[in-house]
């Protein structure tokens, strides 16, 4: 009846996951009870859960990423403490638990923190920057989000029901094959990623289509803000790379469920094929994450320097060059597999070539600051912190691309320090910069600067105190994923890294405090102009938060930095026109399709993991039926009457008339 599921799946003998699970469960139940008792459920259902508004979906993506950041961060704290204490002893985490933690940490941080964070920011901002009313496929957008949430839910479920993978975040066979990992851990891993991978793929298709097909009048490609370009590049990579991941995991699942032999030791399976396939996705993946961050920094550096981006066309070229070359370097992840010197050298050099456009980007930001009038608001601090940190990550990255150096450093703590250097210093700093920068746009009030700056400094310093010791440990021969060790020379560095982790944790606490303080002081921090930073692109041309239709009139774009241009020339039609002629606006109707579809996907995923076949069929039929019902819908849009548009827009116009006249005098 319940497949492999029985009471032994609950880890009664392991207090840590049990207590953590109980706390999370109590927290979720508490929130749910509060929502129901206070009567917020109808609001949540109609305004958020079923919303197809790209801004709402963007916010939910970022919320999901933030919650999962706390989960992934807890894993990181546990790992740092374990390695600080497990010198000549077993520490406090037995191997089967420690191995789950580092596997979950990597999986969560990449798939359920970094990905939803950048996809959320792209969702929130790109349609606004393009001057349009929504993304190309609004309901599909909602489906994408909820499927990502399904994946996150399944990963967390593994904490209390069964186990998570003990194989590392990429589940290399043959270790991840049934003979060496007979538990449900790898199945949790693979099905979570299969389901959320579909979500990511549809989000990618949606954003590519949005950028290519939905741009306002005059917004031709070479007038798009840099964030739109990096969004395009990143989502092209998603569309090209994620099917590889899906296919690779499908093959692994066929091995595990139906006795196939793609990657087994026996019957001609080949583990080297898995290595190639997973990295053919895995390397583009890091650029999927970091390109949007580059876009965010371009916006932030230019806005806070009070200048247009230096070398815009060069930046576009660099972005698209990275997009293409990132597909040609995957082999540098396994120089030590015994490929010949020609192969290693060619992929090593290809990997270095990516450093050229990346270096150009750094210099272009540098010259954007040159001759600027720089305001050091929190987003700009993150941007400057990023530039300094990322260069060091780039240096160690190019070093690892030199095969003979990689022969010494592959899989070492040096490598661990390198990719945290680029992912924290690049992606996470970028996500935080974007969060601080666009928060007023999403919610209509600014974030508290004092707590924001504290959060930056603690995170920045904490990062170096944590990861410089890991670089050094790598130079001392320490490899990654050690549950315990006996080498005295490594010990002090592990202790320093644990202290650094504590500093990083303070940074996260400051970030939470910033949110709490800002929400309490929201009236004082209210932004009535819609343009709190003296911005340059179109998202600042509408109110904060923007109305559901974004723009009463689709703006006309006459050059780069469209909104800056309008402010200088004070010629925005909707502002200058004395008696604007408002028209009815058609917007897509909300739809529960995404949520219902994800509900059935969760049921199906859980049932697949535990081999509960009747439930698999039930979940599959349910998801399909949801799709059919949606496909046969009669009404998919509703009309906002011109009077209502006018009423909303007039308030916005009043607020910003004064601002425009001020900017005109600059």
């Amino acid at each position, binding site marked *: 009846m319940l497949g*492999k599921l*029985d009471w*032994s*799946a609950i880890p009664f003998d392991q207090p840590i996951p049990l207590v953590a699970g109980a706390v999370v469960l109590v927290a979720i139940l508490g929130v749910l009870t509060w929502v129901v008792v206070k009567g917020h459920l109808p609001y949540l259902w109609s305004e958020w859960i079923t919303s197809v508004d790209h801004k709402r979906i963007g916010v939910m993506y970022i919320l999901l990423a933030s919650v999962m950041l706390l989960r992934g961060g807890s894993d990181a704290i546990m790992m740092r403490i374990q390695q600080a204490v497990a010198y000549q002893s077993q520490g406090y985490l037995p*191997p089967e638990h420690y191995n789950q933690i580092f596997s979950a940490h990597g999986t969560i941080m990449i798939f359920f923190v970094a990905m939803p964070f950048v996809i959320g920011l792209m969702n929130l901002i790109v349609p606004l920057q393009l001057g349009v009313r929504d993304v190309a496929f609004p309901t599909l957008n909602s489906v994408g989000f909820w499927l990502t949430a399904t994946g996150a839910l399944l990963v967390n479920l593994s904490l209390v*029901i069964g186990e998570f993978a003990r194989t*590392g975040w990429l589940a290399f066979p*043959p270790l991840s094959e049934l*003979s*060496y990992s007979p538990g449900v851990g790898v199945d949790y891993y693979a099905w979570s990623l299969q389901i959320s991978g579909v979500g990511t793929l549809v989000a990618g298709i949606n954003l590519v289509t949005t950028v290519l097909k939905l741009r306002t009048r005059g917004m031709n490609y070479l007038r798009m803000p840099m964030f739109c370009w990096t969004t395009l590049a990143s989502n092209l990579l998603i569309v090209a790379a994620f099917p590889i991941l899906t296919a690779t995991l499908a093959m692994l699942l066929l091995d595990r469920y139906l006795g196939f032999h793609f990657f087994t*030791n*026996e019957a001609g399976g080949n583990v*080297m094929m898995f290595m190639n396939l997973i990295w053919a996705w895995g390397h583009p993946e890091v650029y999927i994450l970091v390109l949007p961050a580059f876009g965010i920094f371009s916006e932030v550096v230019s806005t806070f320097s009070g*200048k*247009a*981006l*230096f*070398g*815009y066309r*060069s930046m576009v070229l660099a972005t698209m060059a990275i997009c293409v070359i990132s597909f040609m370097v995957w082999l540098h992840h*396994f120089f*030590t*597999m015994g490929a010949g*010197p020609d192969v290693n*050298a060619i992929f090593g*050099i290809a990997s270095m*070539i990516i450093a*050229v456009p990346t*270096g150009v980007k*750094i*210099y272009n930001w540098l*010259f*954007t600051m040159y*001759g600027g*009038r720089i305001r050091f608001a929190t987003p700009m601090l993150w941007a*400057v912190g990023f530039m*300094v940190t990322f*260069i060091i990550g*780039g*240096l160690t990255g*190019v*070093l690892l691309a*030199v*095969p*003979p*150096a990689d022969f*010494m*450093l592959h*899989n*070492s703590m040096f490598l661990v320090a390198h990719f945290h250097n680029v992912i924290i210093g690049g992606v996470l700093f970028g996500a935080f910069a974007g969060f601080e920068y666009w928060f007023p746009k999403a919610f209509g009030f600014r974030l508290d600067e004092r707590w924001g700056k504290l959060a930056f400094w603690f995170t920045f310093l904490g990062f170096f105190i944590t990861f410089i010791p890991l670089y050094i440990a790598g*130079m*001392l*021969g*320490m*490899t990654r*994923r*050690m*549950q315990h060790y*006996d*080498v005295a020379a490594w010990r002090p560095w592990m202790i320093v890294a644990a202290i650094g982790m504590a500093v990083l944790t303070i940074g996260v606490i400051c970030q939470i405090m910033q949110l709490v303080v800002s929400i309490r002081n929201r009236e004082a921090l209210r932004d009535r102009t819609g343009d709190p930073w003296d911005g340059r692109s179109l998202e600042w041309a509408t109110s904060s938060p923007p109305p559901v239709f974004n723009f009463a009139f689709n703006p006309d774009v006459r050059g780069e930095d469209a909104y800056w241009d309008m402010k200088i020339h004070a010629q925005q039609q909707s502002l200058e026109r004395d008696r604007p002629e408002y028209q009815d606006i058609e917007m897509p109707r909300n739809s529960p399709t995404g949520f219902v579809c994800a509900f059935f996907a969760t049921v199906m995923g859980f049932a697949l993991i535990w081999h509960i076949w009747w439930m698999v069929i039930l979940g599959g039929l349910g998801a399909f039926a949801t799709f059919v019902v949606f496909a046969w819908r009669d009404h998919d849009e509703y009309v906002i009457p011109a009077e209502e548009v006018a009423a909303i827009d007039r308030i916005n116009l009043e607020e910003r008339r004064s601002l425009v006249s001020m900017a005109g005098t600059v």
Partner: protein
Amino acid sequence: MNLLDPQGPVAAANSTILVDSVFIMLVIVVPTIFAILGFAFWFRASNPKARYQPDFVYSGRVEMVVWAIPALTVILLGGVAWIGSHQLDPAAPVRGTGSPVRIQAVSLDWKWLFIYPDQRIATVNTLTVPAGAELNFQLTSSGVMNTFFIPQLGSMIYTMNGMVTKLNLRADNEGKLQGLSAHFSGDGFPDMMFDVNVVSPLAFPEWVATTAKTDAVLNEDSYKKLMQQGVEKGRPIYRLEDPRLFDLIATQHIPPGPGPELLSDAGRPHSGGHDAR
């Protein structure tokens, strides 16, 4: 295990390339970091002396320089990578004194088996080699992937079941070194560290002779016992019955290791050897 304290020519060449590459890049990186901090500080909004140039958004000369700097650096480093990859290919021969020593390494769950086919002996978790001689490694795995790595001797290489990888090293100085597995392989992975005893060329034959006198015999049966999952705390030594044992493993005539025994039918199998903790 300091990478910057090499004990053999391969490690020495690798770490030279490592250090040189870092310095080549630092030449570019350090001024850039200073420029970032300098520009950010000087052009702060509160500095009245800084000239505001909002129209400085394109300069062909600057563009050429910013594309050229990383490009030239990469051309230089690309040369280092190309030459280095060829000279330091793990399978490339390493010159040594005396006759080369053949060693066949097998990664097991979770220990290292070193077979000396010419000396007809085998050891577990301890590798004894003569100083100065070329060491020809052939490597495979009994089941899951591992990576063979002696940090102070140089290049690491994967071990994979059904396949043989090649690595040539040389140890120059007598003494004790440590090696490890550098690819996660399961619950006993951290216990896969092994001792490397570099002895004098004269002491090596003596050690071989002593080892060959042991009663323990390594053949197909004892190998199958050895490959059961578990951690080996001791340093067993064996007489090698059949010098072709490694070939039997590498060609899968001896099937891959069994993995953990499934004690519970639910999702959480107990980890293999109980001594894994």
